[in-house]
C-alpha cells in the first residue's frame, strides 16, 4: 500500500520533472496538442451546427395534398377531409397533420407576396382560386412514400399530391450528403489529430531513449519506467486541452454572436453542446497523451 503510494508519487513527480526538463519537447507537444484539439473542436462544432440545421430543415419537410375544389360542395368535402386528416395522423411515421382551408390558403399567398415585395394581384380576382389542402409533417422525411400512397388512394377527396416526391428526394439527398460528409470529415480530421499528436509524443520519447535504457539497466521494473512517461503524456494532453478550452471560451462570445446573427433564420437547438465540447477536448487530449506515451515507451521496453 505504502509502496503503491510511493510509486504513484514517484511517477507523478517524474512526469512533472520530465515536462520541465524537456522544455522544447513539452512546448512542441503541447502546442501541437492545442492546435489539433482546436481543429477538432472547430470541426465538431461546425458538424454539430450542420446537423442541427439539417434536422431543422428536415422537420420542415411536409407532404401537401391539395383537395378537390367543387363550388357548393365545400361542406361535405370539409368533413371528408377532416376524416382523412385523422386517418393520416394515426400513422406512426406522421408527426402532425394540418388542414388548410381555402381562405387560409389565400391569406398565406397574399402574405408571401407581400414578404417578397411582389405585386399583389389578388385584388383583381373575383373568386378564390386556391384549393384547400392537408399539410402532413413526417417523423422521418425519408419515409414519405406510404403516406403519399395513402393520400393518392383517397382520390375522392385528394386532387393532387403536390410535387412532393421530387422535393423530398432532393432534400433528403442533400441533407444526407451533408450529414455523411460532415461526419466523414470529422472522422478524418480526428485521425489526423490522433496521428500527429501521437507522433509528436513519440518523437519526444525517442529523444529520451537513453533515460529508458539507464532505467532498464539499473533494475527499474517496467511500471516504474512506463508510468512517469504516461503521466507526462497525460499532463501534456491536459495542458493542451485546458489551453484549447480557454481559447474556445474566449472565442465563444463573438463566434456565437456571429453564428446567431447568421443563422437567425433557423432556430437551432444546440442542447448540451458546451458539455459535449468540453468532454471531447479533454477526453481526446488525455486519451491521446496517454496512448502516445504508452505506445512510444512500449517499443523500448519490449527489448
Amino acid at each position, binding site marked *: 500500500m*505504502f*509502496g503503491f503510494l*510511493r*510509486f504513484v*508519487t*514517484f511517477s507523478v513527480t*517524474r512526469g512533472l520533472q520530465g515536462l520541465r*526538463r*524537456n522544455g522544447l519537447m513539452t512546448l512542441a507537444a503541447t502546442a501541437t496538442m492545442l492546435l489539433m484539439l482546436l481543429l477538432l473542436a472547430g470541426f465538431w462544432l461546425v458538424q454539430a451546427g450542420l446537423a442541427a440545421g439539417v434536422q431543422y430543415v428536415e422537420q420542415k419537410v411536409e407532404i401537401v395534398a391539395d383537395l378537390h375544389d367543387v363550388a357548393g360542395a365545400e361542406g361535405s368535402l370539409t368533413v371528408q377531409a377532416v376524416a382523412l386528416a385523422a386517418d393520416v395522423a394515426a400513422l406512426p411515421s406522421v408527426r402532425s397533420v394540418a388542414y388548410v382551408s381555402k381562405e387560409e390558403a389565400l391569406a398565406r399567398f397574399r402574405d408571401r407576396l407581400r414578404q417578397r415585395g411582389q405585386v399583389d394581384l389578388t385584388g383583381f380576382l373575383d373568386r378564390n382560386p386556391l384549393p384547400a389542402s392537408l399539410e402532413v409533417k413526417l417523423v422521418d422525411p425519408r419515409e414519405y412514400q406510404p403516406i403519399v400512397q395513402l393520400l393518392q388512394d383517397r382520390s375522392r377527396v385528394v386532387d393532387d399530391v403536390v410535387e412532393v416526391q421530387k422535393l423530398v428526394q432532393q432534400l433528403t439527398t442533400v441533407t444526407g450528403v451533408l450529414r455523411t460528409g460532415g461526419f466523414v470529415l470529422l472522422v478524418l480530421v480526428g485521425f489526423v489529430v490522433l496521428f500527429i499528436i501521437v507522433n509528436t509524443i513519440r518523437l519526444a520519447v525517442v529523444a529520451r531513449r*537513453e*533515460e529508458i*535504457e*539507464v*532505467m*532498464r*539497466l*539499473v*533494475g*527499474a*521494473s*517496467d511500471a*516504474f*519506467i512506463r508510468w512517469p512517461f504516461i503521466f507526462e503524456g497525460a499532463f501534456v494532453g491536459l495542458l493542451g486541452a485546458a489551453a484549447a478550452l480557454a481559447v474556445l471560451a474566449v472565442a465563444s462570445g463573438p463566434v456565437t454572436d456571429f453564428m446567431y446573427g447568421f443563422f437567425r433564420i433557423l432556430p437551432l437547438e444546440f442542447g448540451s453542446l458546451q458539455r459535449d465540447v468540453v468532454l471531447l477536448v479533454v477526453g481526446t487530449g488525455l486519451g491521446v497523451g496517454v496512448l502516445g506515451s504508452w505506445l512510444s515507451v512500449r517499443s523500448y521496453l519490449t527489448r
Partner: protein
Amino acid sequence: MTTPTILRPAAALDPSPDHAAAGTSGVARPVVALRGVGKVYPNGTAALRDVDLSLGEGEFVFLVGPSGAGKSTLLKLLIRDELPTTGEVILDGRDLARVPRRKVPELRRKIGIVFQDFKLLPARSVRENVAFALEVTGTPRGRIRPAVDRALAVVGLGAQADQLPPTLSGGEQQRTAIARALVHEPRLIIADEPTGNLDPLISWEILQLLLRINELGVTILIATHNAGVVTALRRRVVALEEGRVVRDEVGGYHRDD
C-alpha cells in the same frame, strides 16, 4: 584529491589471504557461473567462445585482456543485457535465459554496475543521477538522500553534486558512475574499466574502497587495463583473449610479472 601524496599500493593493501586463495574453483557458493558460454553478435562477431567461469561469494576478481577480447560482453551477459548464444549464465543459482522478463529488474537490483561508457543522464545532476538508481527501484524517499550523500562522499564528488554530467571532467563522470553502482549496496559489483579516466591517486582510492566493500562479503568483478593495480594487488585474475579464457589464477596483469 588535492594532496599530492601517493598512496603506494603495498601500503594500502589488505592481503586478506582467504579471498586471494579462492582461485578458479570458487570455494564458496558460486554467485556467478558461466558454463560453456559462447556469444556471437548478430553481425557475426564471435565475442566469447566456450567460456567457463565461476565466482564464489565474496571473491574479488579482475578480468583482463586486450581491447575487443570480450570483457564487456561477459559483463553484459551477467546483467542479462545480452543473452548467450550457447551455454548458460547462472546468477545466484538461476539460469538467466530462463528468468522471465518480469523478474529481470529484481535480479539487476542486486548488482551494482559501472558501465564503460558511464551511461549517465545528461539532463540530471550528479546527485540525481545517483539517486535515480534508488528512486526507480522504489526506495522510500527518506532513505535516498543520506545514501546518495554517502556514496558521493566516498568517491569524492561532494562539491560537484549539483553539476550536470556534461559539465564534469571525465574522471568526475566516471566517479559518478561508480557512486551510482555503490549506492544501493549491492551484493555483486561489476565494474567495466572503472579507472580508465582517473589519475593513479584516485584509481587507488577507488580500489581501496572496493577492497573494503569486498571485505564486507560483496563479490566484485572488475574488467580493467590498469596493469599497475592488477599486478600490485595479486588477486585472482581471469584473462580473456579473442573470447576465450586463457588464464585464471592469482597473479598480475601479465602472466610473468
